[in-house]
C-alpha cells in the first residue's frame, strides 16, 4: 500500500507544481507583452529574439509611459493545443497586457478561441490563411494582423507584376506556370493566383515539399518546361530552394522569369551560382537597409546582439509588433484599451520592412496591417528589391540567364 500512496503523492506534487507555478506575480508595474512563437523553428526563434531586441531598446530609453516593458515568450511547438495553452497561460497567469507573435495558420486557428475569450490587444505577425481570418470574424477591434492574408499576397503580386511589365516593356508576363507544394500554403497560393490572374494563361502542378518528406521536383519541372511559361513560380519552402534550381538545371529548364515564393530561404543560398537572377517574394531583405533607416538600425542591432543575420522576414516582424504597440501606448498616454485601439487604428508606423504601416479593414477583420509582399531578386548573392519601386534597390535582371552561363 505504501508505494501506491507514494505514487499518488508524487502525482499530486507534480500536478500541483504546474498549477501553482507563478500564480502571483504581484501588481502589474511593468507593461507585459506575451509572445507565442514556435521557438524550435528559425522563424519563431528569430522573431522572438527580435521582439526581445525591441523590448530592450524601449527599456534603454525609459520604457513605455515611464514603465519598464517585459516580454514573456512561450513556445507553441508548432502545435495548436500547445499554442492555445500558451495564450491561456499568458492571459491568466502571466497577466500580460498584449499578445504578440505568431507563425503558422494551423497553430493560430487553435489559438483563436482563446484569444477571443480574453480580447486583449493582439498584434499578430503570422498566419496567412483566410480561414484564420474567418475564424476571427468581424468586429473584433482588439485584433491586429500584421502579416498579409493569402489573398492580399496574391493581389500584391498582380499589382507588382503589372507595374513591372509596364515599366519594363520587354518583360512578358502572359503565360504562367505555378509549381506549388501540396499543403495549405502552396495550394492557397495557387488558388489565389488562379482567381487574381484570371485574364492570363495559368497552369499549375503540385509537388511534395522536402519539408513534408518530398524533394523530387522533376515531374513538375518537366511539365512546366513543356508548357513553356513566361513566368515560372514555385511556392514551397526553404528546403526546396536549391534542389529545385539544381533539378531545373539538370533538365535544362530556364524560363524567362524564375520565381521562388518560399517564406524563407536556406542558409547561404546566395553563395550558390544558381541563385543569380532568381526572383522572389518577401517582405524584407538586408538590402532594404540602403533605403530604410529603420531597417538599417534594426539590422545592425540584431547582428551586434545575436551575432547572426535575420534569416526570414518573421524576424523584423517581431521587432515591428513590439514597436507599433509601444508607439500606440505612448500616443494614448495610458494603458486604457480603447484609447490604445483608437491610436493603433490611426497609427502611421515607419517600419523596418520599408513601408509605413497603418491598419484598415480587410475582407473580414477590422485591422489589417501589411498587404504587400515585395518582389525581389537574387543579384550577386543578395536579395535586391525590385518592387514596390519606392523601395527598389536594383533593376530587374531579365531574362533569367540560361544554364550554360
Amino acid at each position: 500500500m505504501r508505494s501506491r500512496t507514494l505514487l499518488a503523492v508524487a502525482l499530486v506534487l507534480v500536478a500541483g507544481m504546474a498549477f501553482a507555478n507563478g500564480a502571483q506575480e504581484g501588481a502589474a508595474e511593468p507593461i507585459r507583452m506575451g509572445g507565442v512563437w514556435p521557438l524550435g523553428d528559425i522563424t519563431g526563434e528569430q522573431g522572438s529574439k527580435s521582439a526581445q531586441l525591441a523590448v530592450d531598446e524601449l527599456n534603454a530609453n525609459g520604457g513605455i509611459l515611464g514603465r519598464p516593458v517585459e516580454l514573456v515568450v512561450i513556445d507553441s511547438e508548432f502545435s495548436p493545443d500547445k499554442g492555445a495553452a500558451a495564450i491561456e497561460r499568458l492571459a491568466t497567469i502571466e497577466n500580460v497586457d498584449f499578445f504578440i507573435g505568431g507563425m503558422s495558420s494551423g497553430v493560430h486557428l487553435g489559438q483563436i478561441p482563446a484569444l477571443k475569450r480574453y480580447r486583449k490587444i493582439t498584434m499578430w505577425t503570422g498566419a496567412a490563411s483566410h480561414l484564420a481570418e474567418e475564424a476571427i470574424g468581424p468586429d473584433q477591434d482588439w485584433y491586429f494582423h500584421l502579416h498579409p492574408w493569402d489573398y492580399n499576397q496574391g493581389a500584391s503580386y498582380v499589382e507588382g507584376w503589372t507595374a513591372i511589365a509596364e515599366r519594363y516593356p520587354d518583360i512578358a508576363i502572359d503565360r504562367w506556370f505555378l509549381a506549388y507544394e501540396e499543403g495549405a500554403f502552396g495550394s492557397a497560393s495557387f488558388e489565389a493566383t488562379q482567381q487574381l490572374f484570371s485574364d492570363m494563361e495559368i497552369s499549375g502542378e503540385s509537388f511534395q515539399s522536402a519539408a513534408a518528406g518530398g524533394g523530387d521536383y522533376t515531374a513538375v519541372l518537366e511539365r512546366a518546361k513543356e508548357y513553356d511559361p513566361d513566368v515560372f513560380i514555385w511556392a514551397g519552402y526553404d528546403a526546396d530552394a536549391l534542389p529545385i534550381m539544381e533539378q531545373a538545371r539538370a533538365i535544362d529548364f530556364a524560363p524567362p522569369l524564375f520565381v521562388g515564393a518560399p517564406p524563407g530561404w536556406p542558409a547561404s543560398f546566395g553563395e550558390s551560382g544558381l541563385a543569380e537572377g532568381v526572383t522572389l517574394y518577401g517582405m524584407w531583405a538586408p538590402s532594404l537597409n540602403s533605403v530604410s533607416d529603420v531597417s538599417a538600425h534594426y539590422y545592425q542591432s540584431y547582428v551586434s546582439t545575436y551575432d547572426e543575420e535575420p534569416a526570414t522576414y518573421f524576424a523584423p516582424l517581431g521587432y515591428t509588433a513590439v514597436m507599433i504597440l509601444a508607439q500606440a501606448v505612448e500616443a494614448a498616454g495610458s494603458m486604457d484599451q480603447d484609447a490604445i485601439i483608437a491610436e493603433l487604428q490611426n497609427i502611421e508606423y515607419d517600419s523596418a520592412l520599408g513601408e509605413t504601416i497603418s491598419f484598415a479593414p480587410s475582407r473580414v477583420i477590422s485591422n489589417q496591417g501589411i498587404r504587400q509582399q515585395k518582389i525581389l531578386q537574387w543579384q550577386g548573392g543578395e536579395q535586391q528589391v525590385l518592387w514596390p519601386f519606392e523601395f527598389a534597390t536594383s533593376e530587374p535582371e531579365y531574362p533569367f540567364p540560361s544554364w550554360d552561363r
Partner: protein
Amino acid sequence: MSSIEQRPRRRAPWVFAALAALLAFLPLVAGPYPQTIARSVLTYMMLAISWDMLIRSGQLSFGIAGFFGLGGYAAAIGATYLGVPPVLTLVFAAVVVGVVALLIGAVVLRLRGMYFAIVTLALAEIFRIVMHNWSSLTGGPNGMLLPRSAFDGNSVATYLMMLVLAAVVIGVSEWFRHSRIHFALTAIRDNETVAASAGVNIYAYLLTAFAITSGIQGAVGASYAQLFGFVTPESSFNVNYTLIPLAMTLLGGMYGTWGPVVGAVLLGVVGEYLKLFIPYGHLLVYGVIIVLVILFMPRGIVGLVRGHLERSRRTTTASEKGGAA
C-alpha cells in the same frame, strides 16, 4: 500471468480512483490555464488507454492518429453538412469511425505483429491523403472551421466534457479488463494457437476490440475538433497523436488502465512545465527523459510500483515476465 494482475486489485483501485477523481476536479478550481493543460492531458490519456486496450491482445496499432483525425473530420463534416449539435458530434464521430474500423478490421485483423502495425500506419496516411485531396467536402489542404464549438468554448464546460469522456473511456477499459473479452484477448496475446483451440473466437473478439478502440479514438478526435474549432489534414493527422500516447503508455505501464493514465499525466504535465524553464530546447530534455525512464523503468511506473508491491507481499510467481512474447 493472470494471477499477478488479479490478486492485488481489490481495495487499491478504489483508493486510486478516489485520488484520480480528486486530481481530475483540481483544474476546475484552478483556472483556465490548468484546464487547458488538463484537457490536453485527458486527450492523450484517452488515446493512450484505447491503444493499450488493443495491445492487450498483442495487436500493435500505429494508426491512432488516423482514427483520431478521421474522428475530427467526421465531427466537422457532421456539424457542417448534417447539422449535428456540437456535443453529439463526439458520438457521431465514434460511430462513424467505429464502423470504418469494423469494415477495415474485417480485412486487416488477420495480420499480426509488424505487418498489422504497418498497415494501420499506412491506413492513417491514406485517411489523411483522402481528406487532403477531397477538397469539395473537406476544404482540402486548408481544412475547415466548425460552425460552432461545444459550449461556445467555455473553459469549465469543455473541461467537464473531456472529463466525462475520459471517465467513459476509463470505464470501458476497466470493463474490458474484467469481462470475458479480457481473458480472450490476453489468451490471444499469450498464445494464439492455444486460444483458438480452446474455442476462443479470436477474430470476433479482435474485431470488437478494434472497433471500440478506434471509435474511442474517433470520439477523442471529435472532441479535439470541438475544443479548437477547426480541422486541417496536417494538424488532425499529426503523427504525434500516435507516438505520444504510445510513449505515455510505455512510461506508465502497459496492459492496464492506470499505466496510460499515470503516463499521460506525467508526460503531459512535465512537458508543459519544462518549457517554462527551458523555452529553447525543452524538447531535447523531454526526449532525454523518455530515454532515461525506459532505460531505468523498463516496466513503466505502474509496473515498478506493482513490482514493489509484489515483492513487499512476498508474492512470488513463477512467470514473472509479463511482457510481450
